[in-house]
């Protein structure tokens, strides 16, 4: 289970400086920020802009283009449930409906107790063993709602 730091401008500046010299540095920087803080905090955007000699609007444009970058930290656990065709062929739509009902959240939502964030994902390359998911980066296959609940309970 990942533990995230709360935003700190000095820490963010260090992270940015560590990657700023790389070719096309913005994605590596944004990944590193999200790794540390669980999201790309809006306070980090001007820092990235300054380091890369971009406008804040340009950095905002980059952050919001990519589905992966969050604006707020996720819950304790992140469940990425595959919604793509190969998993659909094995009932992923019904499974997603059941999971959303059981957790009481919609896509991108976090349960009230802050325990689980549910993210849709379009393909994990586990298309021969679907329906598939990643729970905190751990791959899960041949899923049904009960298996997901068991996995969440053992991760808690």
């Amino acid at each position: 289970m990942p533990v995230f730091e709360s935003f700190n401008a000095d820490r963010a500046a260090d992270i940015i400086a560590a990657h700023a010299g790389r070719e096309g540095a913005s994605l590596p920087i944004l990944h590193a920020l999200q790794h540390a803080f669980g999201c790309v905090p809006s306070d980090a955007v001007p820092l990235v802009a300054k380091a890369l000699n971009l406008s804040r609007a340009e950095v905002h444009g980059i952050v919001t283009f990519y589905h992966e970058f969050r604006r707020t930290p996720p819950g304790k656990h992140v469940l990425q449930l595959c919604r793509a065709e190969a998993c659909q062929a094995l009932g992923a739509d019904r499974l997603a409906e059941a999971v959303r009902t059981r957790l009481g959240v919609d896509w991108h939502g976090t349960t009230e107790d802050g325990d689980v964030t549910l993210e849709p994902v379009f393909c994990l390359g586990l298309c021969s063993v679907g329906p598939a998911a990643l729970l905190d980066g751990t791959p899960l296959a041949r899923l049904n709602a009960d298996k997901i609940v068991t996995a969440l309970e053992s991760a808690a």
Partner: protein
Amino acid sequence: MTRVFIARDAAALALGADAVAAALAPHATVVRTGSRGMHWLEPLVEVETPAGRIAYGPVDVADVPGLLAAGMLTGGAHALCLGVTEAIPFLARQTRLTFARCGVVDPLSLDDYRAHGGFIGLQKAIEAGAAATIDTVLKSGLRGRGGAGFPTGIKWKTTADAEGDRKYIVCNADEGDSGTFADRMLMEGDPFSLIEGMAIAGLSTGATKGYVYTRSEYPHAIATFDAALAVARAAGMLGPDVFGSGQTFDIEQRVGAGAYVCGEETALLESLEGKRGQVRAKPPLPAHKGLFGCPTVVNNVITLATVPCILRDGPEAYQAIGMGRSRGTMPIQLAGNVRFGGLFEAGFGVSLGDLVNDIGGGTLSGRPVRAVQVGGPLGAYFPPFLFDTPFDYEAFAARDGLIGHGGIVVFDDTVDLAKQARFAMEFCAAESCGKCTPCRIGSTRGMETMDKITAGTAVAANTALLRDLCHTMKFGSLCALGGFIPYPVLSALDHFPEDFRP
């Protein structure tokens, strides 16, 4: 101790391979490999015996005590015993070139890699020189395995001939198509073959730097490939003097951020440059002005990883396999509602029906196959009456389909093709980069029109409108996202019209 082999591939891990490996660790030397690609048999345990590797699968951790008691470590009989691995029909029927080592070797062992024919291709490329190497790739007939099928040798020659202070090799590992996992399996199971292929590309085009752009949804492939890069660099395979050639070439892996469109080569280049992943108009071609405006080869993982064996065995051997203008082998991925799911590498020309029914064993649910989607979210839905189509770039194009990156997603008779057509539009709307109007606006209008059709509102008029919209998207979009979304939509409409009636 006896050596046993258990995959560390993400599909095997998802089915419990780690627990099986841990249970066997006190009794045997456990070697973690890539997957053989027989995913319905994972976790597959192979035991090294004088008769060859003997396979057991699918093994649950609870089966381990019984297997040990049955003498598994000497190849003893058991209900889960599958005999000699190589003789399992699914494997025996394949022509494994690109995936020859995958599932066999420890992916991070250079000794294993060399012992199984690695680095011979690179050695030969260095001896032959740049021009002869490109000529070999050209003669082999290798075409881009990402989906577009462009001749690899021509791309390399164009980049080699282009003027530039710097040149780049960019590997497209943004394998976003549902139903495909060949890139993931190769990077997790035989990463050195990709490194070798990229080094050959670099030395023969004059590029000094390579980037691998891997999608973030593949954490295991990312980790394995980074580890392989470190091993290769430490051994002098990458760096200022690649393999004693006197030439510089190094590789860096970059991670995507969940944008499907970044699998399109120019969007991928924009993303590597640190921008929004928006498609560029072509020309200029990436081979002339690619990454940071420099001449750039952009190739898929499988294309690059296939080059070493072409150099090693000669272009004639590769060229001799296949049909028509599709030469060599294709790693075909059987996915979705399929009984024997996994990766099947074969020469081009196997019929779709053989792949789905014979090799794939039909559906997992046991119900009749109603449709298969070939080539990812932008690929057509094929009904069983087109199952005589041979797996070949041109044959699929002739039937308004595409083979794409080689993924086949099987659906049983519970599938609703109108729903699938709507999903195609929804997916396009979510993933459109926004640069061109037909894709950005058309996908949303397409979704709305589909909703009207399924609600029974002016069905004939709206169906005509949907066809007209597909025509606009097909010919007016800047890239294959908007341009190919009509394939799933129109194939569903043409082959399964009954699903579009209220």
